[in-house]
């Protein structure tokens, strides 16, 4: 019984909830913001779309939510087409937009009731109160939105996106200009939502953010989805490690016998860095150390470091170019 339940959960996790096929977008200005995007998003996962400003992240999200018309391609949400079956697809989706686009003169409680109604849900006082409590907005519920601080406004945006109990949540650059506390709260909410089975897609240009929270990461640049992979796999596949070797005595140049290792000498000459691929059969470390002994370099200390997503990203983008 337990087994089958686990299996069920596993299978469920592998369900595709959003299927993006050959999506392109050329804005009226002629700018080609998306070039043939293909992406399957699995139910219950946290997917981070990582890319620099102007990569097309917001455009992609806007297409799925119905805010921008695609130039070509199709998107299916839970098996329904976002254009012909928009009522079914939109009802499943909550969106926290990038900008603080809120009705300035409404009170917090009114704007939440409004959002819930827009998505066809009957008023539910208890649920709205709970949402206000979860986002520490309860004491602000009768305050007009324009009187709130930036952080509070972002909380209102999140509450509005969640008030109709969506199964999919889009967070567009959720931590841009957000303080530490809200950031922490937000990740707690995201984790709790994920536990309850909500699929979460967030965009960011901060690599640490993707590293911290996502199950899978899609890297997007210049309207092209460069790759999508499990975060761990991505780190491993592309992850190079560096071995930092501290020398007992400073050197002014890398000895000729070590040139084939492509070592990088630190500025003051006290350290050399060797970069190697963790996926390779042999890392070359043993040979390097032997060669260093032979060259008469004495080792004081050793240290290894995993390359971050940032390095991976820089590599990917430059490779494509």
């Amino acid at each position, binding site marked *: 019984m337990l087994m089958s339940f686990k299996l069920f959960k596993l299978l469920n996790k592998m369900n595709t909830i959003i299927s993006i096929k050959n999506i392109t977008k050329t*804005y*009226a200005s002629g700018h080609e913001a998306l070039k043939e995007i293909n992406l399957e998003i699995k139910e219950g996962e946290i997917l981070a779309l990582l890319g620099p400003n102007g990569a097309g992240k917001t455009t992609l999200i*806007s297409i799925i*939510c*119905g*805010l*921008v*018309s695609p130039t070509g391609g199709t998107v299916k949400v839970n098996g329904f087409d976002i254009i012909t079956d*928009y*009522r*079914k*697809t*939109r*009802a499943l*989706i909550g*969106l926290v*937009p990038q*900008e603080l*686009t*809120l*009705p*300035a*003169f*409404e009170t917090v409680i*009114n704007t939440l*009731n*409004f*959002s*819930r*109604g*827009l*998505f*066809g*849900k*009957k008023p539910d006082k208890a649920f709205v109160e709970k949402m206000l409590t979860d986002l520490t907005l309860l004491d602000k519920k009768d305050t007009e939105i324009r009187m709130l601080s930036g952080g509070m406004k972002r909380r209102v945006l999140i509450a*509005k996106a969640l008030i109709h109990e969506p199964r999919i949540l889009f967070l567009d650059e959720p931590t841009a200009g957000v303080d530490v506390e809200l950031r922490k709260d937000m990740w707690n909410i995201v984790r709790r939502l994920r536990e309850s089975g909500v699929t979460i897609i967030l965009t960011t240009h901060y690599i640490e953010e993707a590293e911290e929270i996502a199950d899978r990461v899609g890297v997007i640049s210049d309207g092209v989805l460069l790759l999508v992979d499990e975060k761990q796999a991505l780190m491993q596949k592309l992850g190079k490690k560096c071995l930092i070797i501290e020398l007992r005595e400073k050197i002014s140049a890398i000895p000729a016998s070590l040139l084939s290792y492509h070592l990088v000498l630190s500025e003051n000459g006290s350290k050399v860095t060797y970069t190697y691929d963790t996926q390779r059969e042999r890392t070359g470390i043993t040979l390097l150390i032997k060669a260093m002994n032979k060259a008469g370099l004495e080792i004081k200390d050793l240290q290894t470091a995993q390359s971050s997503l940032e390095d991976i990203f820089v590599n990917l983008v430059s490779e494509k170019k």
Partner: protein
Amino acid sequence: MNFQAVKVIYKYEMLRAWKTLFQSIASPVISTSLYFVVFGSAIGSRIETVDGIPYGLFIVPGLTMLSLLTQSLNNAAFGIFFPRFTGAIYEVMSAPISHFEILLGYVGSAASKSFILGLIILTTANLFVDLHIQHPFWMLAFLILTCVSFSLFGFIIGLWASNFDKLQLIPLLVITPLVFLGGSFYSINMLPPFWQTVTLFNPVVYLISGFRWSFFGVSDVSVGLSLAMILLFLSLCIAMVSWMFKTGYRLKD
């Protein structure tokens, strides 16, 4: 049909007027009273009757129309322009709601507000003159048709306007002159023949004429023509707004 969505759009648009209730009621009451004092009493004491109707009474339908048109336009235009301006419209556009339901919410609430306003103005007018409405059914029909079609027109302006200036442009530059020149304060029979012909190109003439007929049974142009013209205007607005929604005009990139 997403009834909840229509309900909340309607409700919160109506609430917006409720918050400024004093302005919403005081300003039409005050301006109507002023018109009565200036036109009804001061000028009315010289003119006495038009088409056999005491002048104070004669101007009631035109005065009502003047407020109705500008208020319908402003209410509906502002109702959709403001969320576009703040960006809050994203929520409506990403909700499981059809274009028709969006219209029902925004235009329905704007039309309701102007309808109530029309009743307030008529009530105020009744304090100054003794109103008798000959064709109450047609009076309401003209009132409702006007509120709906001009709210729809306002919605179009609210979508079209790319800034606050443009939002004010049409009501100020087009509607107000058309209403003043549309026979609000005079019968077009009082104009020289050439200007009578020119006036017939002013759509507001048909509105005021039909509306006035429902009160007094006399009109500048035939009632059927008035009705046809307002229905034509309504159809044009519907066609326009359908095109705007279909192409995503100013709403969708």
